[in-house]
């Protein structure tokens, strides 16, 4: 891919991510407010966003810091929370042919939204993925900076209403890519498993279990339909007309 095509794909990735970047605003504000309450300085709060770049992990870490949890337990919880990102790399690695350098870079910036935007696109590329990833990285860190500077001035009632943006973002991602009955089966099973496992396991484990069982259910449904489908009758070969 030449530089011009790379740039065009990169910008398309940025544009595709824009509506979803809106969802980063409440999460970043919630994170900065929590970080201040946990006693983190502005520099430490910014470093978390710059170096970790994972909303769920950052939010859980400051919650645990507030409760005076030992560092090792905070790290273990983060590992469980981030465990489902293994599946993202597995899926993207199967779709894109990446060098080790590209893998090292895209792995750092990989988020849920960048992943799904990339896999939902026909003929996706590394440049598109990078564009989507960096758009979210820039938004997340800019919102963290704004939250550090101005977070205390946001009314509490509006903070609560902003909390709906994250689940709304998930819906607007899921609905357009839900096309087949097997996918519907996978979604319903994953939702049911998440609902059942969430009260008894950390969030990351619940999501990982739901995704594995849901994907197996979707794959199983596809395989079952494939096995039940009657083989098509072979077309009768046309008799060759001999030249007169």
């Amino acid at each position, binding site marked *: 891919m030449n530089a011009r095509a790379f740039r065009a794909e990169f910008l398309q990735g940025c544009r595709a991510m824009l509506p979803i970047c809106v969802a980063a605003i409440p999460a970043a504000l919630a994170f900065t407010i929590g970080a201040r309450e946990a006693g983190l300085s502005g520099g430490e709060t910014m470093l978390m966003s710059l170096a970790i770049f994972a909303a769920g992990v950052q939010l859980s870490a400051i919650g645990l810091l507030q409760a005076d949890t030992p560092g090792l337990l905070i790290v273990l919880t983060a590992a469980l929370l981030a465990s489902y990102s293994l599946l993202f*790399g*597995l*899926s*993207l690695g*199967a779709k894109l042919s990446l060098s080790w350098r590209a893998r090292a870079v895209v*792995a750092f910036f990989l988020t849920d939204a960048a992943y799904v935007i990339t896999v939902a696109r026909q003929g996706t590329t590394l440049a598109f993925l990078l564009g989507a990833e960096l758009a979210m990285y820039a938004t997340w860190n800019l919102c963290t900076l704004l939250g550090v500077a101005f977070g205390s001035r946001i009314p509490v009632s509006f903070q609560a209403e902003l909390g709906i943006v994250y689940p*709304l973002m998930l*819906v607007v991602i899921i609905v*357009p890519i839900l096309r087949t009955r097997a996918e519907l089966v996978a979604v319903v099973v994953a939702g049911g498993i998440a609902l059942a496992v969430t009260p008894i396991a950390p969030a990351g484990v619940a999501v990982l279990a739901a995704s594995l069982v849901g994907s197996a259910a*979707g794959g199983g449904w596809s395989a079952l339909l494939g096995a039940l489908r009657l083989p098509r009758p072979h077309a009768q070969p046309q008799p060759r007309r001999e030249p007169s």
Partner: protein
Amino acid sequence: MNGGTLGLILALALVVYGLRYAGFALALVARSPRVLDYSRFVPLTVFAALLTRAIPSPPGEWLPRALAIGCAGIAVHRTKQAWFGLIAGFVAYALLRRW
């Protein structure tokens, strides 16, 4: 900057990055057709699980949240516009909370 906090932040960054990279590394060894077939369901199932977890929190708010999510789903299904779905869901939620 506190040394303990700095160490914790770096450890968290390392764990998150390690898990993200490990998926790509696994993809190099797990390229069977069955893995590829099942991996196409991963985005949908991960997002369905995250969505299911997000509906009941904060406690006591599940009904307006569920209805707003339903509105957003219908809006985006009809219009195919992510922006429209987000706005429809947000407005529905704001109205339902006040109602």
